[in-house]
């Protein structure tokens, strides 16, 4: 739900933000400063998961990157998602150099860029990371056509933990109220306090004048991780929890009245919490010495009461051991959880597939793919309602449904009709269970399964209708050149 709203707001600034052009944006005249920003131009071209052999139409976006020490430039990961070409452009225009993505993390929505041209950034003043508190006046930096800074001030109104564009893990967000003017750049925009970078603006709602900012602590975590390869990413616990406001639940769980603590509702098999021995029904009272209240918040010295996700996921790093004080059936215990990042590849249905081509296999005209949320998002912003319901359900409940495998879900997305697929034209969106009797753990298992054809016939079995279909193995092979030519397919399979 949030992701959808955010996407909507994102379009808002690009298209209709012009309406604010006459509004007074800056209380002080634009000052000549030593610039610490560059324009970043990116040509993105995403893979088309509906037609996995090809890419979508490329499009170009302009944004503003914050120049950091060591000649690095910080932008959002969204900006460089599926980037074909990245370039830096001087603020006043004119000068351009090619750039590359050094590190990118789609979960925290940050990317670090660099250029081989050591001259290009040398005269710019690098920004250091600062810190901000609720009530501080922050400045959003944009660039005028003439290269001058356009500075918009606004107060930071909240700091809270929210879901980021990749709808998986929650992170801290600063919220700023400011009336931004429309310029030819989209996001990110640097957000500065004093002469220090305190965040990157990633979303703007031009009806409420609210800006969502990736805050300094998330940026610092990302940068520290990037300095010491391998980049490990933001850690998580691998558990779900519920608040314990309900006094009846508290008494049932043997908790004292008004004594904080969260109720563990889910422990992901193989995750950090599971490895530490945490169980469903445990009550977590403290993490790393910080008292956890009944809503799952702790008292942060900088931001006050905020979600434990910030404590675990941002303030600490992958591989850190955290002490948990818990109650199990009313008895206090201590556990040590070694927090860890969950690599996107470990999901059965991957929440995002960016910078990676979709895997597929065209078998005589049957298009077989691996199910991912990226595929479902081909149905647009309203994909949760419009994509095949069974797939949306599998994705949403994947932690419950795939405890015993498979590793990936292979499905038939559509049929490119051919002589081999007569009678199968209407089959679509069907989960493949077995091919020639071989249970598929992923699409990479297909070649070895296809080698098992019986009497020259491939048998493809589905979970549900139509049960099973058959293909003539020799015909499938013979049809390959025809399929490639007629349907203009550059390749009939991509398994890696």
């Amino acid at each position: 739900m949030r992701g959808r709203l955010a996407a909507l707001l994102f379009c808002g600034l690009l298209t209709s933000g012009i309406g604010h052009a006459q509004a007074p944006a800056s209380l002080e005249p634009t000052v000549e400063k030593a610039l610490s920003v560059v324009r970043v131009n990116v040509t993105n071209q995403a893979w088309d998961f509906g037609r996995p052999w090809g890419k979508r139409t490329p499009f170009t976006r302009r944004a503003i990157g914050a120049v950091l020490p060591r000649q690095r430039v910080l932008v959002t990961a969204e900006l460089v998602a599926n980037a074909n070409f990245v370039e830096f452009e001087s603020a006043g225009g004119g000068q351009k150099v090619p750039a590359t993505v050094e590190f990118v993390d789609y979960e925290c929505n940050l990317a670090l860029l660099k250029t081989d041209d050591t001259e290009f950034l040398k005269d710019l003043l690098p920004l250091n990371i600062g810190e901000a508190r609720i009530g501080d006046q922050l400045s959003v930096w944009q660039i005028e056509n003439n290269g001058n800074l356009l500075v918009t001030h606004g107060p930071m109104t909240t700091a809270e933990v929210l879901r980021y564009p990749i709808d998986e893990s929650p992170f801290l967000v600063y919220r700023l109220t400011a009336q931004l003017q429309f310029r030819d750049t989209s996001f990110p925009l640097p957000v500065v306090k004093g002469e220090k970078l305190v965040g990157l603006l990633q979303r703007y709602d031009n009806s409420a004048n609210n800006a969502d900012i990736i805050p300094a602590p998330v940026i610092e975590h990302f940068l520290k991780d990037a300095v010491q390869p391998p980049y490990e990413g933001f850690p998580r616990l691998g558990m779900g929890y519920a608040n314990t406001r309900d006094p009846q639940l508290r008494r049932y769980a043997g908790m004292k009245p008004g004594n904080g603590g969260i109720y563990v509702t889910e422990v992901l098999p193989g995750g950090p919490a599971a490895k530490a021995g945490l169980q469903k029904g445990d009550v977590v009272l403290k993490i790393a010495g910080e008292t956890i209240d009944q809503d799952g918040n702790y008292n942060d010295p900088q931001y006050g009461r905020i979600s434990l996700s910030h404590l675990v996921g941002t303030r600490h790093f992958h591989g850190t051991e955290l002490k948990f004080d818990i109650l199990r059936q009313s008895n206090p215990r201590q556990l040590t959880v070694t927090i860890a990042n969950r690599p996107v590849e470990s999901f059965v249905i991957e929440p995002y597939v960016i910078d990676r081509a979709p895997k597929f296999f065209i078998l005589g005209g049957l298009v077989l793919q691996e199910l991912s949320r990226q595929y479902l998002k081909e149905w647009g912003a309203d994909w949760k309602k419009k994509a095949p319901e069974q797939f949306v359900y599998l994705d949403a409940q994947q932690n419950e449904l795939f405890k015993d495998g498979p590793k990936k879900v292979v499905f038939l997305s559509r049929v490119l009709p051919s002589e081999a697929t007569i009678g199968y034209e209407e089959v679509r969106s069907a989960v493949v269970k077995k091919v020639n009797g071989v249970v598929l753990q992923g699409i990479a298992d297909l070649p070895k399964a296809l080698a098992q054809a019986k009497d020259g016939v491939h048998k493809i079995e589905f979970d549900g209708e139509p049960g099973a279909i058959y293909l003539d193995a020799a015909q499938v092979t013979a049809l390959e050149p025809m399929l490639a030519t007629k349907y203009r397919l550059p390749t009939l399979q991509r398994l890696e």
Partner: protein
Amino acid sequence: MIRPIGAVALLLALTLSGAAQPNEIRHSVARVTNTAQDANYRVPWLPGQVGSGSGTGWVISGDRLITNAHVVSNARFLTVEKENDPKKYIATVEHIAHDCDLALLKVQETAFFVGTKPLPLGGLPELESLVSVFGYPIGGERLSVTQGVVSRIDFRTYTHSTVDSHLSIQIDAAINPGNSGGPVMQDGKVVGVAFQGYSGDVAQNVGYMIPTPVIRHFLKDIEDGRYDRYMDLSIGFFNTLNPAMRKALGLTDDDRGVMVSNVQEAGVCAGLLHPGDVLLAIDGLEISSDGMVELEGERVLLSEVAERKYLDDVVKLSILREKQPMEVEVKFTRAWPFTLQAQQYEQQPRYVLFGGLLFQPLSRNLLGAYAFDNLRISYFYDHFISKELYREHPEVIILSAILPDPINTYLAEFREGIVEKINGKIILTLDDMVAAFAEKPEFYVIEFLGTGRPLVLERAAVEAARERINSRYAVPAEQNLDEKIPAA
């Protein structure tokens, strides 16, 4: 020489079958006015809104009237009127078949039938032949007659139940609200019952009637005094057009047979057929590779053969299993038991109210009453049969609403949850739930599907809240486990 004989034969046929004359038809068509009370699924202990509507009915043998089920659904008070007779006669529903949208009415005073003539049933009309629709549609008070031609004979969904499909005939005569239940006549015989139009602006002059095989099926089914509903094989099948599939299944190149793709565990074919079997013939009728059979000169889906069966009838299937020919006999021991996806009528909603929490089984009616925006609920509804979810959830029990009270202040997050267990016991039906709540543990611990926390209610608190909730919200009964209510 031949012609006169033909003419005599035709005349004879008319006399013998008692074809009705135009004025007799008019006298035998009645306006049916229904005062209905639809159940309230939102507040299931309330009696529901009263409204009224009208349709058309016609006289058949035995001093009875035929109309559509949707004309007399949820009836509390029914009247029928004839042309040229000012009196309103009180009628009652004798039989109602929601799965084929037909109903049979009795009229209290036999005086109603004076001057009427039972209309005889005909057969399937020819394509392009002319038919006349009699009824009391909107646009006037008196009987209306419209004419059109038979455009198409096809299997079609009957919108009254929303899930049942039977043979239906499309005609291009105007069918408007109020026509429902009226006879469609050809050569003095009833060839159909007008019952639905085409929704939307795209189609014009599209009306549908229930053809006589469906009417006769209904009349035969109720001969024993009870309506048993349509029989159904409860299987899925898939075409065998593909040569590789035909080879793998051991079929020759004769365009025959369909592959069984699914056998419902709760259906009559469970254990008798298996996915992968090939159906070659049904009751001796050859099945073509797209699932059609030829029945009385029409190419129809093989399901139509099962459609024409009754409770305890047997259907003979010639199949190929693992390439071996076999004969299978399937006895229709019961109609399909799970009607969650079908619109329900004449029922008082089932519910349990406990601690201010309202639990109701998932149904089309419930979805119509609540604007649930819940992926799990829509999945359970849409895939209830295709994924055989009824095996673990014969009733999908939803916490549909909460009557706010201090006892449930912190429970709002559980709304729209599907109940899985109470105090460790799996809950299959509302009756299981009542049994679990009848026990006296210290805590009632309700677990829902998914990964949320358990809902905990203290027994002492529930008992203390009971009177308070019932009186504050004027709840006359904390549960209803019987669904049937007497029809008018």
